[in-house]
């Protein structure tokens, strides 16, 4: 008994010691440093393609050569679990000085006060070169919590040989209306082959982003992240069109609605689908994986009743509010945002640079080949979608929106029921 008491006392002492350690650590402090003092900043990059990893390293090397007082050290991070990693590092005050992520994931950190306001540090050239709609995706009020680098848009890839075989003209022009997409898909559907394959296993993000083309905004968001939902015709236009193509026209393979974009790609490369809707980044996979002689292109941007606007969650660079060198990290980000740098990053990942100057540079560098003209054109109309700033959007998406969209696409609930489920779900989350 005596021994047991001693053990309990020992365990208690250890716990107290560890607790003391935990709370004694505290967060970092923002200290000013001598401008000539040499510092090393950590930059966690999530670059994925080999070309982008190399481009990132080249940018950092060039910066380091010109800025001996501010050296940047790249750490290769992973998209896998990056959110949980950042949660921990912010809490522990040890996040990298320069953080690569995407805007929608960083919004919550910004609302919690973990990110520095970059607006005083970014040059006019950088600010002016990026559209106001994109800045909205990375701003809360007047504060800019991240610099937008590259973005993806949803584009329509086309197997031009299948078009030729079916005697159908490949659409051209500034935009492709949903009605034209639908009629083209019908013309290309024959002999067990479908006009369109679309991997919509996770349908919420594409539907939310493409809704902007029909003036479908879904949410009205206040500065504090609170939001009200409105699901009307504009919001439901895209799921309704997809549903009609799958079940009324039978021109869109309904099996693909349950698959990821990567799952559908082999069918597109094998001629099963004449058109393939997905993120622009898939162009890289098509280029890498297509069999010899496979002829493909990207169709003009999809346009709804309100034009070809799309929502986007740009990849971003941010600086922790607790970084000791916010100004120097922001200076590096400003350098990273220069047109030639963003063009190199965008080309590596088949993503669209956020800045107009970089898009022009990329257009010149690629000579508009193999879909680049169309992909870059779609970038001009990308903007922030309100849902990206709605505080409870992730919960609503996982618990209500995604299951409801999936059930609608599977034909188990009607459009009215879908509307009800989306609205009621938000009320549940909001309450």
């Amino acid at each position, binding site marked *: 008994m005596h021994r047991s008491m001693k053990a309990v006392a020992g365990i208690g002492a250890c716990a107290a010691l560890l607790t003391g350690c*935990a709370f004694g650590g505290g967060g970092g402090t923002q200290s000013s440093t001598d401008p000539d003092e040499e510092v090393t900043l950590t930059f966690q990059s999530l670059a994925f393609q080999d070309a982008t990893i190399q481009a990132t390293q080249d940018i950092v090397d060039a910066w380091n050569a010109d800025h001996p007082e501010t050296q940047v050290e790249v*750490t*290769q991070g*992973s998209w*896998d679990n990056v959110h949980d990693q950042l949660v921990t590092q912010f809490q522990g005050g*040890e996040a990298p000085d320069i953080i690569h992520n995407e805007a929608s994931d960083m919004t919550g950190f910004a609302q919690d006060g973990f990110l520095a306001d970059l607006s005083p540090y970014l040059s006019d050239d950088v600010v002016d070169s990026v559209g106001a709609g994109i800045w909205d995706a990375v701003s809360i009020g007047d504060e800019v919590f991240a610099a937008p680098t590259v973005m993806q848009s949803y584009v329509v890839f086309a197997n031009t040989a299948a078009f030729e075989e079916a005697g159908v003209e490949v659409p051209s022009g500034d935009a492709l209306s949903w009605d034209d997409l639908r009629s083209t898909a019908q013309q290309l559907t024959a002999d067990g082959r479908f006009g369109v394959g679309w991997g919509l296993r996770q349908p919420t993000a594409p539907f939310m982003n493409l809704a902007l083309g029909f003036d479908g905004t879904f949410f009205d968001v206040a500065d504090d992240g609170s939001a009200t939902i409105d699901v009307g015709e504009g919001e439901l236009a895209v799921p309704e069109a997809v549903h009609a193509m799958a079940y009324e026209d039978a021109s869109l393979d309904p099996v693909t609605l349950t698959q990821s974009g990567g799952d559908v790609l082999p069918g597109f490369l094998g001629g099963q689908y004449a058109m393939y809707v997905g993120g622009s980044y898939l162009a890289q996979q098509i280029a890498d994986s*297509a069999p010899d002689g496979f002829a493909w292109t990207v169709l003009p941007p999809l346009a709804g009743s309100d034009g070809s606007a799309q929502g986007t969650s740009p*990849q971003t660079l941010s600086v922790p509010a607790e970084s000791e060198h916010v100004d120097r990290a922001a200076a590096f980000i400003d350098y990273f945002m220069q047109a030639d740098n963003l063009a190199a990053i965008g080309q590596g990942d088949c993503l669209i640079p956020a800045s107009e100057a970089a898009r022009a540079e990329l257009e010149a560098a690629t000579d508009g080949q193999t879909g680049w003209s169309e992909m870059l054109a779609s970038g001009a109309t990308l903007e922030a979608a309100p849902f990206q700033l709605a505080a409870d959007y992730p919960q609503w998406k996982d618990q209500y929106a995604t299951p409801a969209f999936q059930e609608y696409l599977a034909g188990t609930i009607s459009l009215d029921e879908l509307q009800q489920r989306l609205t009621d779900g938000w009320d549940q989350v909001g309450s």
Partner: protein
Amino acid sequence: MSTRRTTDRTLRALQYVALALFVVFLGFPLLFLVTAAFKTQQELQSPDPQLLPSQWNLDNFVGAIERAGLGQAALNSLVVALATTVIVVAVALPAAYALARFQTRLRGLATGWILLSQVFPFILIIIPLFLMLRPIGLNDTLAGLVVVYVVWSLPFALWMLRGYVAAIPGELEEAGAVDGASRLRVLRSIIMPLLGPGLVATSLFAFIGSWNEFFFALVLIKDEALQTLPQRLALFVGSEGQVALGQLAAGSLLACIPSLVFFAIIQRRLTSGLLSGAVKG
């Protein structure tokens, strides 16, 4: 009699068929991994997938090694996994013996705590752990990772070993004592040989758990030179669900090898330990 023999043979044949199907079921992911590692990107994305590659090429292995620095990462994982295994077994062994043999009030409390500790999700404990490791300079070090893995593995290892100790009849120890053996001698000569299989199983659990662990390593280790294999393999997964499947398969295959070797070495001990335990029991 003849009918019964025929029935037995049929049953045995069915058992073998079931076993073969089970082996194929278990082995298919490994077979897929092996063949995918040798396929080109075009073959991996082919709409008409074949089980075997048309040509066995090593590009994915070269790409995986060059891109992810797997050699250093494997060494880091090996160091961390071995250190974790040794410490876990060393700490769990006496603790498990005490829990199984000594009748104290603390035993029920400790057992309950061990079980309770297993229900905490990683995300709940990682922030306190991070905050505790920082002031003692163990963030971003392999030693810190070992500490975390030991803390994480210890409760279950203790629970496993306690069961093995409890299964050894107390009469054997009493018989040893009656024959004049000291307590240490009883432990060394009677208990330890019988605990062989339990120690091996616990070691396997601790080694494989820390070899495969990703999340703690992701959060705690920032220095690329210290990253472990699962961290490096995660680099083959990009945003929007992109996966460099060929390189990932090649990297995963390479990552399996040390684990398989460790298992191959230690599983013989598992068998011999079981046999020796049976004889002595």
